[in-house]
């Protein structure tokens, strides 16, 4: 379920930057709001980012320094999680390739 929710959010996120008409923005906002209960249940790590997307879509003004600080905190975790996952994947690949070479 987590992955399905993530995939839906990724799809909406792909569309959102290209949208400028008020009616479509309102539909995207209601879609994201409708997803929040599912996120609470299945994908809590996406909630801050999704809430920020909703806030940005709703706002007609620019991003505030406080929102930038909040983004920094969220993104520090996103970046660190990715780096950790990528390093683990690289280590797994290196071990698999070493084992394959050993068998030759």
């Amino acid at each position, binding site marked *: 379920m987590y992955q399905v929710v993530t995939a839906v959010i990724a799809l909406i996120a792909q569309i959102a930057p290209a949208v400028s008409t008020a009616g479509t923005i309102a539909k995207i906002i209601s879609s994201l709001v409708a997803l929040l209960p599912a996120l609470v249940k299945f994908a809590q790590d996406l909630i801050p980012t999704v809430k920020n997307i909703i806030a940005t*879509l709703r706002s007609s003004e620019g991003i505030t320094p406080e929102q930038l600080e909040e983004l920094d905190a969220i993104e520090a975790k996103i970046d660190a999680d990715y780096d950790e*996952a*990528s390093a683990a994947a690289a280590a797994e690949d290196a071990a698999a390739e070493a084992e394959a070479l050993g068998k030759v």
Partner: protein
Amino acid sequence: MKKIVLTLALALSLSGCASFQKGIERIQAGYEVVTTAGVSQRTAVIAMQSYDVVAITATNYQRLRRCTGANGPVCRDPALRTRIDAAIYAGRSARNNIKAYLRQNPSVTVIRLADYGTLTKATDTLLEATAVYRSVLGK
């Protein structure tokens, strides 16, 4: 679950077919280039957060076990790892550049296209690289 299906349906209806959506995006991007030589702050901020969402998806993908030929279909293709890494680091750098620019110029309304373009390209690459993974999970 019903809400997720409805949301997915709405997202798909908003996106339409892929080629139509690409065409719309190109027209909008072209319009913004002609009219502003940049994109609005809001467009850039949403693009940053879109990148973040896709980066979380990429993280989940990198956490999968390496494909062995017998553990599919939900597994990690080792051939994609470096491609995803490159897109993540390019997108991260562009996202951080935009944030730094916003800090230095809090009242700016237009974000330069170079960083925005790099960021959206990285997001597109990540979506493309994880497309098979996402489609398998959607079934």
